[in-house]
Every structure is written in C-alpha cells, then in structure tokens.
C-alpha cells in the first residue's frame, strides 16, 4: 500500500521526477517562483553570474521586489536596488516591481496572484513561508540558493516532517491570526518546529479571513519551521480566483498521513497576545501585559505580517476620533501600493493622520531596523511586525513588543501597552 502523504509531501513530490518521497529525503525540486529582494538578490545575482549560465531558467518565474530599503535610504542601498533593476532589465524579468507599484514582497506576491495554491516557492527571505496560507509549499532560502534556482529552476530540499496544528472554536473579539500564532510559538518555542512543516487546520479558520492565515503562515519561521501551510478551501478559492493568471492546484493531506506531532487548541479560550522582548516565544495575554504598565515610545503598524487592509481597518476603527499619547510616535505602513490606495479611499489615512500618526509609503523600513522609525537607546516600541530580537528596530538597548494591530492602536492612544477594550 502506498504511503499516505501530507499536503507538503505531495506538493514536493509533484515537483520532482520521483515516485515516492519521505521526510528526511534530500530531493531536487522544481521551483514555480524564485523570489529575491534588494538585500538578498544582489548577492544572488553576483553568484549567478559566476555559474556560467547566460539566461535565467524562466523570466516569468522569478520575482524581484525591492522593499527593504526603498525608496532608497542611502547611496549604498540605492546601489543594491540598482543591481536588481539592471538584472531585471537585462533578463526581462516579468515580476519586477519599482517602489511605486510594489510593497513588501510577501504582501505583494499573493495580492498580485504571482504565488498560487500548489506552487513550490523558494525565496531569499525567511518570511517566504507566508505563501503557505494559500496552500503552497513556500520556504526561505539563502542568496546562493537563489542564484542556483535562477540558473536551473530547481533547488535541493530536505523533505520535512510535519506538525499538525488544529485550532477549533470561534475566536474571541480582537483575537486574530497574529494572536493564534504568537500563542502557538509561546507554547512550542522558537525552535519548536525547527526543520519541520507546520500544517494548520481546524474549524477556527472558517471564522477568520485570508489576512489571518497569511499572518499565521508568515510567522511559522518564528517557531523555526521550514513552512507553514493551510489546506486550501473556499476562502482560498475566493482569494485567488480573481487574481490568478495561470492554473493552480489544491492539494490535501491524505487521511492517515504521518505527523511528528499533532497539537490541538481551543481558539475560544485564547486572548490577544503580546510577545515580550527579545523572542517571539515570550507571549503573554494582553491582560497580563497591560497590568505591567509598560510605557511605549513608538508604535509600528505594518509589515508582511500585519500591514494588510484588514489590519489597517482594525487599527483605524480604534484610532478614529482619538489622538495618540503625547511624546509618542505612531508609524503606519500599508504593505503595498494597492493597500495604500484602498486605505486612502476608505478614509483610513485621514483617521491615522488625525490621530497624530505618520503614514509611510510601502516599505519594510523599521521592521528590520532598516530606516525610518529607528529606536534610540532605551526606547520601547509595540509593533505589528514579527520579530522582537535584541536591537531589531534600532539601538541594542531598545525593546520591541509584538502584538496584533488592535492592541498596537490601543497602546498608541494610551502610550502604554493596552488592549482595545481599554480605549473604547
């Protein structure tokens, strides 16, 4: 009898010429999309040029998104962005986006229908795992890997074991995908899924939208995971059908497929979470975080985790008619140009500006401590981003707390870490 396969094993298998695979096997897999950004692609391009292959494997299957330091923050980053642009021009790369049409890569690619269910995606960015939300196998790799993929359209991969994570029950008000993933990382730790695929399922996800799934898959890497995948369903179909310009496939795990672990949670008992410095696993309930009276200097709402229109709507709903605390900053960064435009049309930008926020063009910016929103020594930020490592947003003595956009907005108003109920 043939082995029962997980969705991850099936997608990988179908991108090889093999008849069977199992966890631990090292395979050469065909790549549907190979992604790089303005930090990682310049190294990949340099390495690609040493391999001795003139043409990229497929100009339609490469995505180059300058997003980390654009609009260029300084001369050096301008040079890196230029390397991308010139490579894109030379090879006529279809999915190259200048900053006026782009945004944070992991918000952009799903939005534009560039990554689709059933795809095998590699990206020289650790949050490439975001696309698992669509039912794709997507994983972060390095620049040299990317160079190899550019040349041959394939890459070596170790077939991962899978951990099945089931969330059942209707989430409480203000609880989003971000809270479920912070809660999970709090339970299993930042190394809890190292080298493995996280596979999410359960009734809870009928109550949440695609933005929540994207936030969850996005942070799979924060538990060390190779990927974080959802089985595609009607919500997936609703999201991709108007965006896709090519065929896509819905894969499902077989009944009886093997898992390294199966974890089950009642989402109905989970509260909004705040992850304390300096690891995403330090998550606690908002009530506990709020009781500690933690003053903040800056709030960031944006990034590939929570910079989508749904996130901005939630934040605006809380900030409407209110002002942020004196002597604090609120930086709102719509993750893509389309999101920016939608937010403008819906009046959200005005709400943010009226509250005293600054609204930036789409960029990674402060999320990785790149530019525009850097913390001074001893400063504290609450952020809807995904990492709170020491020094991540600025000075090595600064601190980052991670939370969902509602908690961020409420905290901005009170100038301390607070839940949405405290300001409404």
């Amino acid at each position: 009898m043939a082995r029962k396969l997980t969705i991850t094993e099936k997608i990988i298998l179908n991108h090889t010429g093999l008849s069977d695979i199992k966890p631990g096997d090292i395979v050469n897999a065909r790549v549907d999309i190979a992604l790089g950004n303005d930090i990682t692609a310049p190294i990949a391009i340099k390495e690609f040029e040493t391999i001795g292959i003139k043409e990229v494997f497929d100009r339609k299957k490469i995505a180059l998104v300058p997003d980390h330091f654009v609009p260029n923050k300084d001369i050096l980053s301008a040079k890196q962005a230029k390397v991308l642009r010139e490579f894109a021009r030379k090879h006529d790369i279809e999915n190259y986006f200048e900053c006026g049409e782009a945004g944070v890569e992991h918000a952009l690619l799903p939005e534009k229908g560039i990554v689709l269910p059933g795809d095998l995606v590699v990206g020289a960015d650790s949050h490439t795992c975001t696309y698992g939300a669509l039912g794709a196998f997507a994983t972060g790799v390095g620049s040299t890997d990317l160079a190899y993929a550019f040349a041959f359209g394939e890459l070596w991969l170790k077939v991962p074991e899978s951990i099945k994570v089931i969330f059942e029950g209707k989430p409480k008000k203000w609880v989003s995908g971000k809270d479920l993933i912070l809660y999970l990382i709090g339970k299993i730790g930042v190394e809890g899924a190292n080298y493995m695929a996280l596979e999410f399922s359960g009734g809870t996800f009928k109550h949440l939208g695609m933005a929540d799934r994207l936030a969850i898959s996005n942070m799979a890497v924060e538990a060390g995971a190779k990927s974080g995948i959802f089985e595609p369903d009607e919500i997936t179909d609703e999201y991709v059908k108007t965006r896709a310009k090519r065929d896509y496939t819905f894969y499902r795990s077989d009944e009886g497929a093997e898992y390294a672990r199966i974890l089950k949670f009642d989402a109905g008992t989970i509260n909004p979470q705040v992850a304390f410095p300096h690891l995403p696993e330090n998550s606690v309930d908002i009530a506990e975080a709020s009781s500690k009276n933690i003053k903040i200097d800056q709030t960031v709402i944006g990034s590939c985790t929570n910079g989508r229109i749904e996130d901005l709507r939630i934040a605006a709903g809380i900030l409407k008619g209110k002002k942020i605390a004196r002597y604090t900053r609120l930086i709102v960064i719509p993750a893509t140009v389309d999101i920016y435009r939608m937010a403008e049309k819906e009046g959200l930008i005005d709400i943010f500006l009226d509250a005293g926020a600054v609204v930036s063009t789409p960029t990674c910016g402060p999320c990785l401590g790149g530019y525009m929103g850097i913390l001074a020594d001893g400063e504290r930020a609450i952020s809807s981003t995904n990492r709170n490592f020491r020094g991540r947003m600025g000075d090595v003595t600064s601190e980052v707390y991670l939370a969902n956009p509602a908690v961020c907005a409420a905290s901005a108003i009170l100038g301390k870490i607070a839940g949405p109920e405290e300001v409404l």
Partner: protein
Amino acid sequence: MIFKGKVFKFGDNIDTDAIIPARYLNDAGEENLKKHCMEDADTDFSSRVGEGDFIVAGANFGCGSSREHAPRAIKACGVHVVIAKSFARIFYRNSFNIGLYILNADTTGINEGDLLEVNTDNGEIKNLSRNTVIKANTIPKFMSELVNAGGLIGYAKKKAGAYSHD
C-alpha cells in the same frame, strides 16, 4: 580539514540580527560584514577574533532572517567552523552552500577561550585546554558532497558545464 584555534562562546538563540545587524545590510562587501560581525552580541568580537578561531554556541544558532550575510560575515572573520547544540534551518543550509563548516554537538563543556582542534571530516572535537574529546553528529552525504564541491556554486558550475539553456 583540521582547524585549530580558540573559542568564542555564545548562548542560545543567537539570531541573525545579532550576527550581522540589518543596519549594515546596505553593503554586502566582505570588509563591512567582517567589521560588524556579532556586534550586537559581543561589541569588539571582530577585533579579537583571529584566523581559525571557533564560534561555539548553544541552541538555535542563526535563527531569524535568511540573510546569507550572516554566515558570510562569520567566514570573513576567519572563522571556518561553527559548533552549536542546534542550528536554525536557513542558517544551516546557507552555511553549507557557502562552505562554512557547521558542527552539531553538545557544547556544554566548551568554554570561552578554550583551545580546540577540530576535524571536520570525522566530526572530532578535541578540547586541548580540558583534555576532552567530543564527537559531532554526522552530516548527510549530499551535504558533505556540497561542501567538498566548494559549496553550491562550485556544484552549480559543474552542472553548468553539462547544461545550457540555449
């Protein structure tokens, strides 16, 4: 290969922002990466580390971003081998791809400043300061082939010889 040098010891969860902070990622040049390597974990690491020295760490070394700048920065400092209890996934593959040796071993008994002699072929780690020997876990065959081919690009060049798109 056999390497001999002294130990720079770090704890658990040394992330890629600690290995090379993002504020320096606007320049992928070796000099820049070398100068700021480990800066946020050990301020003057790059001025004290020497050719052949080792980075020895606890669990989950290299977690966080996919930036290949991290293993490249370590290599630029003259460190050829990193020994840790465990490694984050992307850091692990990046290291093999660029030819930085990665050894998985119980590092509890290794301390800052110890003198080590490490054989990357058989994974033997001799602690000359403490007269102890420990053994690293073996690596998959494909991965040792990769390092022996000079990393993924060396491997790719061989493949390119027998392959062309046009």
